[in-house]
């Protein structure tokens, strides 16, 4: 079930209604049942995989707490991690690995006897696997008590708002909330619904509209050179942000309506002035996951400089692999790793330059220049994310600066008419203004003192969604594929 569907609207109303109507002791069960239904809406049989890992991790958690012997404890952690990563490898990476083996063997003039698996990737597999792993690691580290209530643990993994595309939660933040009584509070309902409305705006007005132009170009790459390739890639940067952060807003909002508070996943990432700042604002739950469970265990920055750089690069390489079983994703991760290392190497020079432009108007211009550069660098990396194959990505790079005479309909409107471009531009500007105002004026449009302003903003959003939203195509969230 996708959030921008009629089925979800009904589902949300029924589940939220039941949640508040039921006595507290029955709520976990209702939420678990609803989450199962939500997940099974995609492909029912995959719930068995999820159930399998839940049972293993639940049992591993109990053992990790009970056993005092460090060696045995470690073994249970390894079993749990292997189970989770094993599922990921089989369903997500098996065919990719096999494909590369085939290519390698073919170059040596040999055939590959290993068969391919005819399987579909269970939706949101990478997300709930990582969430389950964070539980066992935290119990192993002694930061979290093992959850004794099997149903509550299952709900921690399966809680429907964040089940298929995060945020990838930590047990410390979520588990206790399932035990808390959440009374029907106007503040929660209002804040949750507003967040959902904002998420829907980003998804259906911006992301799905930009998708029309981006898909047009990326699905007919050979018909385009120059400006449209650059424009479509820049649009994809905004599309993926609005798509994913829109999803996160709807997830956070639908949880908040029931009184749950999930972690923020985005914080205006394209306002970042450095790549490292970008990563502290983009997909925060994944960045912090990698920081806590991979980067720091590898030694983080408390090691020799070459090792530090290796740690950074390795983490981003793994992040690329996490996103998808394709060389384009790996290259995307490697690029970000390289960006960060380059930024570290050139940090002293960058500091000197910053000090030159540190005052008044030049500081603003310098900041804008940096924002533009970060956007440019991330957009270049997104190109590998969007391209269907490495060959396509190379095509875009080779042809992006081969300019022909300007044909506005083709190059600017991306063969989608003036309305596509004008509406998209307007919606992006609107979003930027809203984000800027809310960030700098204490969230005034959502939670400000002026009731008139808050209500007017909600009605404007509603009208924009109704009149400018794209509802006619099957538009899943991009991150569902991971």
């Amino acid at each position: 079930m996708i959030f921008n569907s009629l089925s979800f609207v009904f589902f949300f109303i029924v589940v939220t209604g039941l949640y508040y109507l039921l006595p507290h002791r029955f709520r976990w069960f209702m939420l678990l049942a609803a989450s199962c239904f939500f997940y099974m809406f995609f492909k029912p049989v995959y719930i068995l995989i999820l159930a399998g890992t839940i049972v293993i991790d639940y049992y591993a958690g109990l053992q990790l707490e009970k056993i005092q012997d460090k060696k045995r404890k470690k073994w249970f952690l390894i079993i749990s991690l292997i189970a989770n990563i094993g599922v990921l490898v089989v369903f997500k990476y098996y065919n990719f690995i096999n494909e590369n083996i085939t290519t390698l063997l073919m170059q040596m003039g040999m055939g590959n006897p290993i068969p391919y698996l005819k399987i579909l990737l269970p939706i949101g597999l990478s997300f709930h696997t990582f969430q389950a792993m964070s539980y066992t690691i935290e119990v192993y580290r002694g930061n979290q008590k093992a959850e004794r209530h099997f149903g509550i643990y299952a709900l921690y993994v399966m809680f429907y708002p964040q089940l298929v595309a995060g945020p990838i939660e930590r047990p410390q933040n979520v588990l206790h909330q399932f035990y808390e009584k959440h009374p029907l509070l106007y503040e929660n309902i209002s804040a949750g619904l507003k967040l959902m409305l904002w998420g829907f705006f980003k998804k259906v007005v911006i992301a799905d509209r930009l998708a029309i132009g981006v898909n047009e170009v990326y699905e007919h790459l050979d018909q385009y050179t120059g400006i449209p390739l650059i424009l479509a890639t820049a649009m994809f940067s905004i599309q993926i942000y609005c798509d994913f952060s829109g999803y996160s807003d709807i997830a956070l909002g639908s949880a908040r309506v029931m009184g749950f508070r999930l972690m923020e996943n985005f914080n205006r990432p394209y306002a970042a002035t450095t790549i490292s700042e970008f990563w502290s604002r983009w997909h925060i739950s994944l960045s912090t996951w990698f920081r806590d469970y991979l980067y720091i265990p590898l030694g983080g920055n408390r090691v020799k400089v070459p090792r530090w750089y290796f740690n950074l690069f390795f983490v981003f390489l793994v992040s690329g692999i996490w996103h998808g079983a394709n060389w384009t994703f790996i290259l995307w991760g490697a690029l970000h790793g390289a960006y960060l290392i380059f930024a570290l190497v050139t940090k002293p020079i960058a500091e000197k330059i910053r000090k030159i432009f540190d005052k008044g108007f030049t500081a603003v211009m310098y900041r804008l220049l940096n924002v533009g550069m970060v956007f440019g660098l991330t957009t270049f990396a997104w190109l590998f994310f969007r391209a269907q194959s490495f060959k396509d990505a190379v095509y875009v790079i080779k042809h992006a600066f081969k300019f022909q005479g300007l044909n506005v309909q083709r190059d600017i409107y991306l063969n989608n008419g003036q309305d596509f471009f004008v509406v998209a531009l307007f919606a992006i500007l609107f979003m930027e203004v809203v984000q800027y105002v809310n960030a700098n004026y204490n969230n005034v449009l959502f939670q400000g003192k002026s009731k008139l302003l808050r209500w007017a903003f909600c009605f404007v959003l509603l009208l924009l969604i109704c009149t400018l939203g794209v509802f006619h195509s099957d538009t899943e969230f991009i991150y569902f594929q991971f």
Partner: protein
Amino acid sequence: MKRLLINALIFFSISFVLLWLLDGYYTRYYNTRLNVCQKPDWIFSHTNQSYDLAFMGNSRVYNMLDAPQLEKKLSKTVINIGITGSNLSEQFLVLDQFYKKGNKAAYLVLQLDMISFDYTKLPFKLHLPTYMNLFHDTQVQEVYKDNVPLHKFLIWKYIPFARYMEFSNRYVLYKTVKGGFECQQDLGYDSLRGGRYENMPYRDNNHTCRYWTVNSTDWKYFKNILALAKANNTRLIFYSAPFYSATRRFQLNTKAIYELIQQQADSLKIPYITFDVPTYTMANDTLNFYDNNHFNEKGSRIFAADLADSLKKSIHE
């Protein structure tokens, strides 16, 4: 709780009013500013006209009927109101609107074949977005009700603007504000100029075996069309255009369907002309076809002459 209920009530009431106003604006706009580049709007742009013959059907009328040649051969005024990919319920809707615009037709020449009575066998459904601006009309609502899941119909009926929202690619705010459509000239759907199959080479497209039956919804609207024509003093003529003859073997149970059409024609004393018979030799030549179901331009011209000859007799009768 009380605060929540009051605020929810205010929010939904204001939203309802805003959407209702928007709905009214869109309906008025799209009812008055017709996009004649699209066939249904082109048909509805004709008002208070009288025609001797109106030809109705699916793409086998839309693309295959050379109206100017028929006009010349028959010395009658002709309009082609065929809609590509339409089922009988959509054809009923279009005919109803055609009459409601004050138009008249002495004869309704209805193209019927096995596809007409069982559209579920093909991936063609009612063109849902096309008639949303006419949704206030009870006949249009009935057609939609019979063609979409009930929950969709109820949402479109009771939540203002929901239907425009769902088809925002057709009902575009930007265009209503800017005014008009990119294409407003008359493309001349009466002639073959509106069709797609001009001078196209033959493509052997369809070898799927299908067992044709009669679908209850299509049958209901077949009867509705007959009643509507009668109520508007229009006489009926049925005809069946040919398919490329070599593909007849893939269409099963067609004999029974043609017998049913003949039966209906006989009982209601409606002339029925069929060209989908082995003796109609032009259907044996791929040079006359664009694909197995449609003539190309050349085939259409030959067929128009043959149809005109047959119609002469029926009209004079």
